[in-house]
Structures are given as C-alpha cells and as structure tokens.
C-alpha cells in the first residue's frame, strides 16, 4: 500500500515552540497580490496532479477500465454486428472512446464530494480567490485523465487493427472534441457532487444518467435498426452528436451538423451547470 517504509530511527526531538522563530515567520513583509483567475485555476490543477502522484491507484479508472471496455465489446459484438471484430472496430472505436471518457467524468463529482466531506474545501473557500478557480482547476486535472484514457484506448485500438482514415490530425481532432465535451460535462458532476450528501449517492445518480446516455446512442449500433421512439431519443442525445462528429473527424471526413451540435451542447452544459454549481458552491 504505502510506498514509504516506516523507519524506527532515533526518537524524534520534541518540538518546543520558540517565540522568536514564530514571530519571524509572522512578520514577513507585504502580502502578495492575489493570483489571477487563470493562475489560481492552474494551481488547483497542480494539486490534482500531486494527488495522482501520491495516489496513483486513481489511474486504474482511466486505464484498466477503458481497456476492458474496448476488448469486451469488440469481441462480444464484433462477430455479430460486422463481418469481423476488426471491421467492427473501425466503426466502434471512436464510440467506445467517447463512452469510456464520458463515464470517467463522473469521478469529478465523486472527488469533489470527498474533498468537501474532508473539509479541505473549507480552507479554499475562505481564500480571497476567483470563486470558480478551485473547481475549474480540479476539472483541468481531470481533463488530463481524459486525455490519458483516450490515448490508452487509441493505443489498444491500433493494436487490434483500428486504422483511422483521418490520420494523426483526424485522431487529434477527435480527441480534442471529446475532451472539450467532457470538460463541459464535468460541470454536471460538480453540481451533483455539491448537492448530494454522500459519495455513494453521487455514484448512483451518475450511473442513472450515464447508462441510458451512452447506451441509447449510436455508439454500439446504427440507430436505423431501432424502433422509432428510440430513434427520436437517440437523435437528441448529445452523446450521439458527439460520437458522430468524432467518428467523422477520425475517419477523415467531417460532419458539420453533428460537430456544431456537440459544441452547442458543450457550451450549454458549461453555462447551465457551471452557474448552478457556483450557486451551490457559494451557498453551502
């Protein structure tokens, strides 16, 4: 578990507070100016990275889980839905990449909820800072996890025979779109992370939202095979728009309407849930 071993060296010297030493640190000259919103957010992002350094187990969520998803679905559906797993993968990989990364966004809410339970946010909230910085920074940290997950999935896909027509640029463009959307979607979870009482209930709500959203979409199969009422839902589902645009970009074409909708959804989610989140954050 721990990477430090406890050593029983010489007994630690007993701390005796010294008035002189304390008054030196108390008198330390002028206070600096408060940091800019960007610099404060980046500092909080740095905190997220430090946490990854100390608790590397967190990365299991963003590596092992996506790998399992890709392998499982490629071989489960590949033969049935396409001529071979390899053919299916050309269609399926962008979709499973979106699904996995969007699923990972829920850890933003879980993480925020635990941080708040522990009281760390009490200190942050008494600092004279641009208020959203703590949350924006936290999501910056999460964005790195999204990129990592996307890259891992891409790696597995390439190994299994995924050959994107759009080349490197197409792949980068697809991952870019996905990360923009996931950043926006994370605000949904910061809101629930603040509103709900426990880590468990945040998990529960996340699952209830994420399962229908990712499965009732064009990720696994072509919506043309679905009944009309389901097609109607699938069509308005933002995940469908996102998958369509990522798929197009990665295959070297473009789907202007889907891309636009994916971006509109991103902007809308950020604004609506960003505002709701900040309202709750200030009100607690």
């Amino acid at each position, binding site marked *: 578990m*721990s990477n*430090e071993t406890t050593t029983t060296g010489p007994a*630690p010297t*007993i*701390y*005796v*507070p*010294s*008035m002189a*030493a*304390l*008054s*030196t*640190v*108390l*008198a*330390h000259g002028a*206070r*600096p*100016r*408060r*940091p800019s919103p960007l*610099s*404060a957010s980046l*500092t*909080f992002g*740095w*905190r997220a990275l*430090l*946490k990854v350094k*100390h*608790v590397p187990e967190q990365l299991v969520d963003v590596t092992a889980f996506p790998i399992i998803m890709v392998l499982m679905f490629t071989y489960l559906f590949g033969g049935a839905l396409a001529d071979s797993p390899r053919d299916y993968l050309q269609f399926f990989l962008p979709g499973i990449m979106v699904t996995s990364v969007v699923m990972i966004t829920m850890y933003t809410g879980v993480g925020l909820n635990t941080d708040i339970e*522990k*009281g*760390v946010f*009490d*200190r*942050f*909230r*008494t*600092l*004279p*800072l641009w208020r959203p910085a703590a949350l924006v920074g936290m999501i910056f940290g999460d964005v790195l996890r999204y990129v990592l997950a996307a890259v891992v999935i891409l790696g597995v896909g390439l190994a299994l025979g995924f050959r994107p027509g759009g080349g490197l640029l197409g792949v980068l463009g697809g991952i870019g779109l996905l990360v923009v959307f996931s950043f926006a979607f994370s605000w949904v979870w910061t809101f629930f992370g603040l509103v709900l009482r426990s880590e468990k209930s945040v998990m529960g709500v996340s699952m209830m939202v994420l399962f229908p959203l990712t499965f009732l979409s064009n990720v696994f199969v072509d919506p043309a095979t679905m009944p009309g009422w389901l097609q109607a839902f699938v069509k308005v589902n933002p995940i469908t728009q996102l998958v369509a645009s990522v798929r197009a970009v990665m295959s070297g074409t473009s789907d202007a309407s889907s891309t636009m909708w994916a971006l509109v959804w991103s902007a809308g989610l950020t604004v609506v849930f960003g505002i709701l989140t900040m309202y709750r954050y200030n*009100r*607690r």
Partner: protein
Amino acid sequence: MSRRNTGLAIEAEGLTRSFGATRALAGVDLQVPAGTVYGLLGPNGAGKTTTVRVLATLLRPDGGRARVFGHDVVTEADAARARVSLTGQYASIDEDLTGLENLVLLGRLLGYRKPASRERAQHLLTAFGLTEAADRQVKRYSGGMRRRIDIAASILNTPDLLFLDEPTTGLDPRSRSQVWEIVRAVVAHGTTVLLTTQYLEEADQLAGRIAVVDHGKVIAEGTPGELKSSVGSGTVHLRLRDPGQRPEAERLLRTALAGSVQLEPDPVALTARVGGHGSDLDASKQAARALRDLARAGIVVDNFALGQPSLDEVFLALTDHPAVPTEAERDEQLEAAR
C-alpha cells in the same frame, strides 16, 4: 513592527441559522476586540462551529448580521476573506499531499510566486518543528503535527483574524501546550484569534474574554476571572476513610466553605465548591481551613484534591443544566427512546 489593530475585529448581531429542524444558532451576539484572543466556550452541539463558519464566510446566516473588520460577511465576503484565515475543527489540509506541498500550494493560492512560496513554506515548517516531516504525506502525521501544519497553513499570510475551531481537542497535554504557545505568539504579533473550546482551562489560559455558548446562544460573557467568580473559583474532591463519617464531614464543609456540598455515588466521596461569590479568601485558603476543621473533628481524609471549576460546573451554575448529559441521564434518555 507588529500590526496593531484597534476597535472591533468581529461584531455579530442576532445570528440565526437552522439545519432542517435543528436550530444551531438562535441569535448569537458577539463583540470581539481586535488584537486579543477571544474564547467561545461550549459543549458539543452548542453552535460553536456554526458560528465560526458563518463568521469565516463559509455559511450564510438565516438572520442577523456579522461584520469582520467592518466588512459584512455576506455582502462583502471577499473583503472579509482577505483578512481572515480558518483552521477548522476537522483537518482543513489535504491529507494526500505532503506538509511542504500543502504549504506551497497555499502560498501559490495566496499569490506568492513559486520560489517565494517554497521559501516561505520552509520557514514555516522550521518554526513549527516540521522540517523532518516536510516530505511526508499529512495522513502519516501524528495528531499534534497535523494541528501544527494546519495552523501553519492558516498563518501563511499572517491574517488579521484567525479562527481556531477546537484546536486542541484530542491532543495530549504536550501537544496542547505547544498549540497554546503558538496561539500566544500569533496574538503577540497582532493577529486577533477567535478560539472555540470545550475546556474552561484552555479559555482561561489563552483568552482575554470568553463567551459561553449553549443551544445556539451566548449565555454569559466576560473575562475568565469574571466567569469563574460567578461560579466559584474551584472545587474540592474528598475521599474519607470511613463512610460513616460522611454526614459529619458534609456538615462541617458546608459551614467552612459556605457553599454547596455534593455527595458522590461513592459512599466515601464528597465534592464541594469553594471561593464562591462574596468570599474574600482565595480557594486554597478556604480549602485549607476546611481540611483543618475536618482534622479537628477526627475525620480521616484519605484523598484530597483542589481543582478549577470544570466546564460542567460553569454550566450548572449558569444554566442549571449540565453541559453534557451524565451517564444516568443518558441511560434515561435511551430508555425513554425505546
């Protein structure tokens, strides 16, 4: 060279706050003079943390007003935040990070550049005796070290007002006196400290003034001396050799101390209050006189202790109810709930 504050650091009028059906604050009034240690004394659930959270801009009051150095904590929260700092009852430090990382992180958030915030962090770690633990995760710190790093983080920017919510609860006597020394240094420097505690002794040691809080209200306010003399300045605990002599001992103590004497469940034990109102003798002299009277009457005392009034005794005197339910009352409540 220290910044002296004049006037009031905190003014609160009629603060109320409920959580569902629980009325945590039922109209708290406070006036905390700048440059002093002010103690909020109260039992579990009295509303100490809620008061601190309102004053530290973390929680909105349902009613009433509070100002910190003249800034309203609701409408001018940002200006208030620039002057205050909080060490919460539960760790307000990131346990996954090391002590050094925590301080550097805060330094950056307060606007220090990276080298400056590292330097400042190192100085603080040295002054707080944490140099050796600098690169260890805070979750591996002892309770006393945790408190120290938490307070170090709170004075990183030398705030004008520092909130310490039960800074010594759960600490051993040595760690407790270390925290006390730190608090003394902080206030000597000119920072106002609002300290909550469940221990009269702690408030007595540190605070210039104390507000006693119960059921979300301030029920008494004054200097430690004023509060204690309203209660009696101490208590004697006696154990006799012969339980048969207890009635006689009780009678003698009542006359000698002119105060209340309580018979304990233990048939040889008695507790008496000394140094109550209007007495011009100090507690030890009164106790000595009582002992002499007992000896003259041939009553053998096996064990004798003179103590400060406990929070419980202050509470009994102020409210006619004990601060915490006694064992028997708790059993009764449990029984009733069944």
